[in-house]
């Protein structure tokens, strides 16, 4: 099964700076999603981008998708301490019973 791989794995930034994370995958996808996980909690869906879309915005989040390079990036602008979390990308195949393949996660620490 395909799998997202985030890069870099850990990121430490000052409050107010932007945070960028990348994700690569191996096979064709229907869509790619980003999730956030606060320490010890469940995952929360952030944003979904379909394979025919190149960029999507949601509040301070911007996601890009390059299907030719099989990669995606998540940008968090003007970061806040509350953005401290792990971020996961997940890919959905065209035929997969709504299965998602998750990457290993990207830990982001925002220093106040």
């Amino acid at each position: 099964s395909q799998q997202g791989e985030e890069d870099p794995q850990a990121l430490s930034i000052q409050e107010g700076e932007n945070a960028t994370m990348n994700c690569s995958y191996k096979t064709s996808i229907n869509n790619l999603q980003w999730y956030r996980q606060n320490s010890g909690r469940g995952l929360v869906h952030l944003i979904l981008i379909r394979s025919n879309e190149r960029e999507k915005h949601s509040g301070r989040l911007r996601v890009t998708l390059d299907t030719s390079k099989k990669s995606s990036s998540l940008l968090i602008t003007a970061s806040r301490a509350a953005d401290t979390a792990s971020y996961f990308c997940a890919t959905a195949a065209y035929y997969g019973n709504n299965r998602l393949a998750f990457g290993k996660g990207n830990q982001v620490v925002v220093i106040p």
Partner: protein
Amino acid sequence: DVKVTQSSRYLVKRTGEKVFLECVQDMDHENMFWYRQDPGLGLRLIYFSYDVKMKEKGDIPEGYSVSREKKERFSLILESASTNQTSMYLCASTSDTYEQYFGPGTRLTVT
């Protein structure tokens, strides 16, 4: 808002015990999933179900079984718990939109 609940936040069991993890969702979702999460390995799919009484193996089903007798409830069963099943267990559900809604997780320790 969709709510997914899991029966326990923390659970400690002994090797060889039979363990039941329960997950309930309140949004009439067809699809439900069980994952385990381990440091450095991300989320790995154990089993999923796309309808009542239907189940499919995920990537790591060995040592686990599942039950889905009602649409809102999906149970994960460890027939004989082992120490290598110590992990965080996450349940999720979705309709046809692909976006998954997660429960808060159960941190299981097997001693």
